[in-house]
């Protein structure tokens, strides 16, 4: 007889998926004219539909990448933006654009940059905190990016293109960007799904995982490949959208009820996709309506929302450590 186990919280995941769908519809219907729900077929199909889809996909992918990163590095504060993976990817794209490459080389650049950044963090994590390594990486990549940008300033067209990348703007992006992102996105998601159970075991630490019979080296490579593909796809689709990958998995984990089992990696990834998608769709809605007719950058909005959230996470972790010490 198999003992009865309490269920995992599937209901919350379904509700989140429905909410993400509702947010998508809301963003399609909302514009600057003042009415909350306006229906203009041309504007919706040619302008809002591709843009909102990009927001959904980029945000969702970053959410999943964040969940995987946190489980891989066993650090609740890790995410593609905090570890410098987004910065590495976007720096590579900037360098390519400055060098005069065509925009359709951007996905390859993003993938190369993201992978390089992840490998650096992986090596760094053996010696020190991944968060500090990410800080160094982000700062260095940002500085080099600024240098490249200043070199490109003489060419307004090109520097505009680069700025759009760096600031995570969804303005003027369309189905073409989505098409370029999609192959990497699908590959990353398939790998994530297959690696899910192994990542659950890696949560116990790489040494324990090794002794229970998991090929930790191989699984680490697989997880790194997945995170790199997902992050590169997200950057290709939507540019830099900081903190999305931190906020989404954090909320996804916190939403599990007290009497239910903590969710596993696959489950967390589904929730993180929905939450990341919602964050970026709403940020994009704010970006295109708040200061209309002027557009704000979507990445700026996610950053403004995510920054305080990051601080709150650190604060809460410290509180937990303190209360843990009393508990023990």
């Amino acid at each position, binding site marked *: *007889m*198999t*003992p009865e*186990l*309490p269920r995992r919280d599937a209901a919350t995941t379904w509700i989140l998926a429905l909410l993400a769908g509702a947010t998508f519809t809301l963003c399609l219907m909302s514009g600057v004219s003042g009415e909350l729900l306006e229906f203009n077929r041309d504007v919706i199909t040619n302008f809002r539909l591709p843009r909102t889809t990009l927001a959904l996909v980029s945000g969702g992918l970053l959410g999943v990448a964040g969940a995987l990163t*946190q*489980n891989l590095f*066993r*650090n*609740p504060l890790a995410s593609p933006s905090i570890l410098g993976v987004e910065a590495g990817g976007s720096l590579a794209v900037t360098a390519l654009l400055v060098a005069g490459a065509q925009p359709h080389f951007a996905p390859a650049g993003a993938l190369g940059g993201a992978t390089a950044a992840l490998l650096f963090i992986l090596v760094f994590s053996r010696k020190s905190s991944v968060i500090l390594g990410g800080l160094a990486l982000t700062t260095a990549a940002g500085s080099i990016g600024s240098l490249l940008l200043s070199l490109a300033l003489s060419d307004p067209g090109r520097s505009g293109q680069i700025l759009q990348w760096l600031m995570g703007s969804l303005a003027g992006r369309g189905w073409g960007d989505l098409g370029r992102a999609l192959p990497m996105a699908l590959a990353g998601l398939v790998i994530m799904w297959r690696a*899910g*159970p*192994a990542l*659950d*075991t890696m*949560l*116990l*630490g790489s*040494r*324990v*995982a*090794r*002794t*229970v*019979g*998991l090929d930790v080296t191989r699984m680490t490579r697989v997880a790194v490949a997945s995170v790199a593909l997902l992050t590169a796809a997200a950057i290709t689709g939507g540019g830099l959208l900081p903190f999305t990958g931190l906020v989404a998995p954090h909320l996804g*984990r916190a939403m*599990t009820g007290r*009497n239910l*089992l*903590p969710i*596993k990696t696959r489950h967390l990834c589904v929730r993180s996709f929905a939450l990341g998608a919602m964050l970026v769709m709403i940020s994009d809605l704010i970006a295109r309506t708040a200061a209309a007719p002027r557009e704000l950058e979507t990445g700026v909005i996610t950053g403004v929302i995510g920054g305080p959230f990051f601080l709150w996470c650190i604060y809460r972790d410290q509180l*937990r450590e303190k209360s843990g010490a009393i*508990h*023990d």
Partner: protein
Amino acid sequence: MTDFGLAFMRRRPCAGISVRQLRMTGRGDLLATGFSTDFHPAKIHYIEAPNGAGKSSLLSCLAGLDSPGSGTIDVQGAGIATDDPAALLAWLPPHDDFPLPVSVIDVVLAGRWRFHRGSPAASDITAAIDCLRSLGIAELSALSVDSLSTGQRRRVNLARVFAQDADVLLLDEPFSGLDEVAKRRVDDCLNWIADLGRTVIVARPR
């Protein structure tokens, strides 16, 4: 002796470990001059030494996690029919480190990885619950490890080691943080497991 409910654990010929001239510089007295011994099956071996003597280093070398500076470690036995390290060696780390929420039952099921490879069968779940029950913590199975006390976490991790059903159990301070009742319970379990032919190696402070 009472039945601990570790029904999945069958009596079988198990591997022992023989260590010759194991040396690791800078890892304490135990490994400074070359450590040699034989760990026989169906016995509990206690490595008792003060803190910093190198007990943890020795155990992680035996577990194949660290490589010694010099010397040989030979995992051997009459009837052993496997070269899967996870079937031969199970390891309890000196500290229970769970930085992210994970449920007790999932931790123990991770010990069964070599059987289920990610999709636990009913038999794996039964075995995992058996391990928790044998340590007196079956009622914790649905909780998250962050809600547990130090001693409870220690036993959850130990249950994970039992669930692996390996020939050799390398236990780095399994009693740390446990109260007297829990210590006796762990002791009884280890005796039971050794009686089934397993090699049990316990490091503890003197």
